[in-house]
């Protein structure tokens, strides 16, 4: 350090601060690193582009009105569609939404509006932990609890919906919690100042103020729920026919049917699986994009 006053001799001991960053090995290293990082970004984008391209290319020829309205013939035969899966997915998702979203939002209300106390901290921690539970384990749990366990309900729409709801619940709760925290305290104070009680403040002021954010979180959870396959295998079980029973009859769903179509050897069945992949992808994309759009619009409007 003390010798740093003179012009550095061409030795290996030149301090970094005296070497020009614009020359020599360091510059080359820097340039190389920039290229490497950019390349990494490109590599990370490639799978998504490939998936979108391939799913669209193989799926577009399969999806038509028949695909949405007819049930699947044996895998060897062409034509027909995933009507059973669509009905099943719609049915299961409707039930799962009814179960998970009110519960999730209520949990978030409890955490944010009545916390922080010891119970809310515990709930919050385990909600975080719950996002990491393997989906297959959720399936096993619902199987053990409802399908063969208490009540012995058997496979069906309801048990499938319970499994999906358990998967969605922590996602809804976490995002709703963030959104409720964003509601400024001034709004709550104003409401109290007008004489509103706590429940009135929450129901009539806080929740409406957070509504766009809550919608975003719920839609992202739905997008996640639609694609779940593993827990349905052991709770709804799958069916190639349209099932309208609430419980007791094995129910189908698009992702399950897609999986079975993809794993059998006949070309016609695989083609239909690509069609289902396109539908599923569009659904998920639609929900994700709309959710983000609502979310971003709301956050601009708030400020």
């Amino acid at each position: 350090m003390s010798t740093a006053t003179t012009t550095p001799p061409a030795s290996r001991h030149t301090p970094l601060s005296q070497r020009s960053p614009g020359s020599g090995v360091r510059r080359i290293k820097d340039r190389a690193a920039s290229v490497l990082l950019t390349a990494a970004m490109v590599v990370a984008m490639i799978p998504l582009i490939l998936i979108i391209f391939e799913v669209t290319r193989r799926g577009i020829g399969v999806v038509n009105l028949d695909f949405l309205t007819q049930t699947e013939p044996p895998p060897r035969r062409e034509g027909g569609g995933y009507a059973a899966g669509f009905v099943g997915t719609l049915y299961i998702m409707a039930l799962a939404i009814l179960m998970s979203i009110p519960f999730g939002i209520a949990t978030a209300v409890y955490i944010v509006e009545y916390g922080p106390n010891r119970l809310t901290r515990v709930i919050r921690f385990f909600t975080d932990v719950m996002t990491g539970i393997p989906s297959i384990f959720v399936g096993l749990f619902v199987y053990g609890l409802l399908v063969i366990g208490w009540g012995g309900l058997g496979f069906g729409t309801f048990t499938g919906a319970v499994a999906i709801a358990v998967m969605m619940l922590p996602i809804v709760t976490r995002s709703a919690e963030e959104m409720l925290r964003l509601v400024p305290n001034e709004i709550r104070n104003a409401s109290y100042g007008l004489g509103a009680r706590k429940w009135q403040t929450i129901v009539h002021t806080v929740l409406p103020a957070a509504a766009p954010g809550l919608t975003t979180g719920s839609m992202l959870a739905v997008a996640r729920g639609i694609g779940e396959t593993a827990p349905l295998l052991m709770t709804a079980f799958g069916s190639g026919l349209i099932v309208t029973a609430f419980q007791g009859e094995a129910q189908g769903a698009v992702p399950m049917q897609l999986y079975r179509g993809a794993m059998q050897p006949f070309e016609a069945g695989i083609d239909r699986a690509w069609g289902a992949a396109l539908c599923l992808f569009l659904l998920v994309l639609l929900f994700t994009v709309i959710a983000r759009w609502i979310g971003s619009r709301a956050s601009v409007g708030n400020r």
Partner: protein
Amino acid sequence: MSTEAREAPQAPEDSQRGTLHSGRGRFADPVFKWIVAVCGTTVLIILALMVIRTTSEAWPVFAKEGFFGFLLGESWNPGGSRTEITGTYGAWPFIYGTMITSVIAIAIALPLSVMVAVYLTHLAPRRLAKPLSYTVELLAAVPSVIFGLWGLHWFLPNVLRPFFDGLEAVLGWFFLFEGPVRGVGYLPAGIVLGIMILPIMTAIIREVVAVQPVEQQMAAYALGSTRWEVITKVILPASFSGIVAAAMLGLGRALGETIAVLMLIGGSQSWGASLFGTGSSMASHIAATFGESSPESRIALMAIGVALFLVTMIVNILARVIVWRLGQITGDAAV
């Protein structure tokens, strides 16, 4: 968290209200609180039920094989009994499959996600940064069954298969890359798994990298550092624990991922050192054999589920603790 620091608004007490307000609202308040508290506690009840129900269901298997006997046993011969445990249940082949695919996935996703995160926060043109990170996040929204379909019917035959053949020709003498190349196996499953956990890891690392104090970086630049030196000597060392947390959350995902692995791993019940070999992961074995299993072997599958749950819980809780310690980041991306 920031709102907690400020004083939370309080509803006026009943004594502060006039007699005008003594009506039904008085009872609505505690009732409302009760309802949301019960909903909140449901999460805990569900988790407790999960642990109790599955463990008690799977208990006979653990009792017969012993906990470590079950984990390390190498043969899986389900019996057909309805009432007792008659088969042999050793989960080692599936545990090995889970470990090896997860290690491959992390080996691919960790360096890539660090580089992408650094690129997004420090290198990307301002206008591109946001759309690019949205696109990476979009990858997280793709259902795993689509990854499986794409992996099995496009990625494997068109990209991985030729690559594997080349790898086998060059490195075939090395035990990890011993032939024959069958197509499906540990390696393709691990690679696709790596792609799947990339977005979640990138999202967390990006958050961690983004909150590193700018002053230190400015100081380093002022001392004449190049961007590369700032990244490797200032930003990454400070982000280390966040990167570890991200890797663990990614690992948690990889351990539990079912359908995509199931479609790509080959589904055999044996295990071998070669990465080209076929096998099963814990999750994929459960999903693959559940449908046509006897009641007895479903109990054994439940035992695998319990073991898998234990491991993912440990990994996840450790990761969460690290993330919570970091404080500044929300960990939202992990949802």
